[in-house]
């Protein structure tokens, strides 16, 4: 199959679905609008996953790659966007303009996918900015004062990131790679003598990508945006665009960290990765709000993904980011489901007390998702972390023993230590949710009975949000068993760069 046809199949249905959604929304046929966006995304996603496993790598229009990771990641992004739409069905359909929000989600998914597929600097910028614009609008779409504020914060910081990106582009395209193509970029960086300007250009672009993946010190917009956006929208924003940006980052890292400047780039990015794990973990520990905690946890998780990228095996980084994205979509949708079954919920972790007893399917599903995010086997998240840490530790040993490069040896060793300490800490903040869900004290139970808001709780079994959360939890559980039987590489295979 030609690359152009494959690309059209991957992007076309989602775009058409989004356009239909806009049109239907104009006539206030919201259910039809959301459905067409979701169906378009599902078809696109299906093609993407299929091509990810079967298709050989190819470049379409000289700027976008398809096949392997370049199809799997877009496919997964589209599927997760569809999952967010279906899970938030009642919410999207239930309010004016919901159809256009769904269209925005579809557009953001296509743009995020294109970020991961970009094989050209200019294409990367166009895709990143399209995804970002959709992201600002989606955050502001919650139409609360706080959401407006965090959308503006997101936008202002995003504008700075765009500035960095354009400057980096100017340096690289103006000075080294007139065509902007990644293929030539790699050749430039492999030359034995590289001026420092190229290093600066690469770091500027990496900084912009770090902003998109909410890495420290470019992270502060993320907890605000995810907390104030509608949870079903955040379910996509925290997963899809991040997965796309991490994919681009892992690929870019592999291209630029190959020549004489490799060590310097890696050390700088290693500091960013370590800081992200530390700052994200400490930030998440202090949070009392469920979605805000998830936002900070996402910063730490982006740090792990960056460690994967620093191992210079993009498949590992992208596979980890994918495990994160799947579970994260579920955990944010769970916030939607919590709100449905407990309308008086104030968004706090403490406010989830007693859910385990009253809404068992939902609570058990959230437990599986959070435990997977913490990286406890045999769930999917463990295999992601296992690959990342295995990469870092093995590379550290190689640097010490084979290359005799103590600086890089220690860099990778410390990254692995930071990652492992971070995952232990993560169990504390993810665990605080489990505690609230299941481990209520008798005191809490008395409070329950006294609390009138509990009497109006709806039954959770019939809401689409609960069902979709359960479905993601099932995916995390079943996919986690696959490597046990088919080997550690089985799940990574579709994420290889072909």
């Amino acid at each position: 199959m030609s690359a152009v046809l494959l690309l059209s199949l991957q992007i076309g249905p989602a775009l058409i679905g989004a356009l239909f959604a806009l049109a239907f929304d104009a006539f206030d046929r919201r259910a039809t609008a959301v459905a067409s966006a979701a169906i378009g995304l599902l078809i696109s996603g299906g093609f993407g996953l299929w091509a990810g496993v079967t298709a050989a790598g190819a470049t379409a229009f000289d700027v976008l790659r398809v096949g392997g990771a370049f199809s799997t990641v877009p496919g997964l992004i589209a599927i997760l966007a569809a999952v967010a739409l279906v899970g938030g069905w009642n919410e999207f359909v239930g309010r004016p303009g919901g159809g256009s929000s769904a269209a925005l989600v579809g557009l953001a998914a296509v743009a995020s996918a294109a970020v991961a597929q970009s094989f050209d600097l200019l294409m990367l910028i166009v895709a990143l900015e399209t995804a970002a614009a959709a992201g600002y609008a989606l955050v502001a779409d919650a139409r609360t004062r706080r959401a407006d504020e965090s959308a503006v914060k997101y936008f202002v910081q995003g504008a700075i990131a765009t500035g960095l990106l354009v400057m980096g582009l100017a340096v690289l395209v103006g000075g080294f790679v007139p065509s902007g193509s990644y293929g030539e970029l790699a050749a430039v960086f492999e030359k034995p003598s590289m001026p420092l300007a190229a290093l600066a250009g690469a770091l500027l672009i990496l900084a912009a990508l770090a902003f998109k993946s909410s890495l420290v010190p470019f992270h502060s917009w993320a907890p605000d945006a995810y907390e104030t956006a509608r949870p079903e929208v955040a379910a996509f924003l925290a997963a899809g665009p991040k997965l796309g940006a991490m994919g681009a980052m892992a690929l870019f890292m592999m291209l630029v960290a190959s020549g004489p400047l490799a060590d310097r780039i890696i050390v700088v990015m290693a500091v960013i990765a370590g800081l992200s794990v530390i700052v994200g973990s400490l930030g998440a520990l202090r949070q009392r709000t469920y979605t805000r905690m998830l936002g900070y946890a996402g910063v730490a998780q982006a740090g792990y993904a960056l460690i994967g990228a620093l191992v210079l095996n993009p498949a590992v980084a992208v596979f980890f980011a994918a495990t994160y994205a799947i579970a994260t979509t579920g955990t944010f949708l769970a916030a939607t489901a919590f709100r449905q079954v407990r309308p008086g919920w104030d968004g706090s972790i403490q406010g989830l007390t007693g859910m385990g007893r009253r809404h068992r399917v939902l609570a058990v599903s959230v437990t599986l998702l959070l435990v997977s995010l913490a990286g406890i086997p045999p769930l999917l998240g463990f295999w992601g972390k296992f690959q990342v840490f295995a990469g870092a530790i093995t590379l550290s040993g190689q640097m010490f023993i084979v290359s005799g490069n103590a600086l890089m040896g220690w860099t990778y060793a410390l990254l692995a230590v930071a990652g492992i300490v971070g995952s232990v800490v993560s169990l504390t903040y993810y665990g605080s949710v489990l505690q609230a869900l299941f481990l209520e004290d008798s005191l809490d139970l008395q409070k329950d009975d006294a609390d009138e808001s509990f009497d109006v709780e709806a039954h959770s079994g019939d809401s689409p949000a609960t069902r979709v959360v359960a479905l993601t939890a099932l995916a995390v559980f079943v996919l986690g068993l696959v490597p046990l039987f088919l080997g550690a590489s089985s799940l990574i295979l579709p994420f290889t760069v072909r």
Partner: protein
Amino acid sequence: MLQLDLLIAVPALAAVACAIAGRVLPSFPKWIALLALLAQAALMFALAPVGLYSGARIEGALWGAFGSMWSTSLDGLSTPLMLLTIFIGLAAVIVSWDVKDRPGAFFALLLALQAALTAVFIADNLVLFYVGWESVLIPMYFIIGGWGSSNRRHAATKYLLYSFAAGAIMLFGVILAIAESGGTARISEITAASAGMSTPSLVFWLFTIAFLVKIPAVPFHTWLPDAHTEAPTAGSIVLAGVLLKMGGYGLMRIAVPFAPSAFGQARIALMVLGLVGIVYGAAMALVQTDLKRLVAYSSVSHMGFVILAIAVATPDAMGAALVAMVSHGFVAGLLFLLVGSLYARTHTRELSRFGGLGRVMPIWGVAFPFGALASLGLPGLSGFPGEFATVLESFRAFGWWTAFGTIGLVLAAAYNLRAVRSSVQGPVGEFTSLPDLGVRETSLVVAFSVGIVALGIQPMLLLNVAEKALLSLSKVAGGGM
């Protein structure tokens, strides 16, 4: 042998069945759990004709090839612990027969725990071992947190964080060991290639710290008294009966064979940790006012003997460690069963409130002193051969340092007899009439007692099975200095 793979699969699938069946009919799950464990037992006995019980090493049939993580094996070292796991699992199910609170979830968690423990003991792949090891955490966390007593939230969280931190350190070791041995994750292959490791000390301690937390050795033990005390009876029985053995098994199966040279350097440190555990655990048990906490601290002391025996590393000492582990599984299981049944009747564990229970509950009043005697190491009961042989072998290897260990033996007599005196004997306390042990509890007590007497009189029953494995282990470890 496909039976090995089924050993893990049966409880795992039954756990799912329990969770579903619990929603249909609350009395289903306990029967599913019982059947699953009986099936596990049957699978184990079906392995007798292929020579499992005369020292053969048997490998699982499934998925051995194409890079799969799923490879299993049973040998003389894992067989006794596997049998113990099944026995304790059965006891845990039977003792929980009356659980009314969310029975589907409870038995599902118990079975998930069983599957994970089985994976730990029969894994021949380091990653599968690690997956089993960590999969124990979440079910036990919810068993303690969901069905425990008053301070369960604190205890469950402490248990989870301690264990996960230790597990994370071990993950480092797992990755390093695999990388050091050229990418293979088979435990038997890594063992064979152990001489080529470039950082044996690092590998050894990364694993050993995790195992010492689980056993637990003294500076890392603080999760244990809380978890054991707050857990429901079934949870305590499995915790003390099987979970602690994961640590001892890990040392013997992984830490020592992977890095024998590092083990050689670490033996003195392990000896000290063992002796400190023996004395500290016993001393703490002596001053407890909570009967369940007393039993919990006695576990620290008994497992100290296991660490000491492994540090000696002669074939006899390794055998003593194995016997002591199985014995402690029986004895601690029995004691937690009895304390749990007492708590169910009185809703207190305060020693000072009991007294004269020998007259109030005659069967309990016989069973508890029996368990206490087994715990203090009375000759003829299972506590004796393991710990006595440990002291003997340790004296040969380490000389008079071992004398500290005998302090532990004296203290064991003191705290056990104190527990008996203030509960069974003396004037009748505030509980003047309590229902005695029922048929189910009594038959469990009998089953435990049979195990304790059999192992006490004839420890060779177990050692014959393990002999070959122990000999080769101690040869690798360079036992006896």
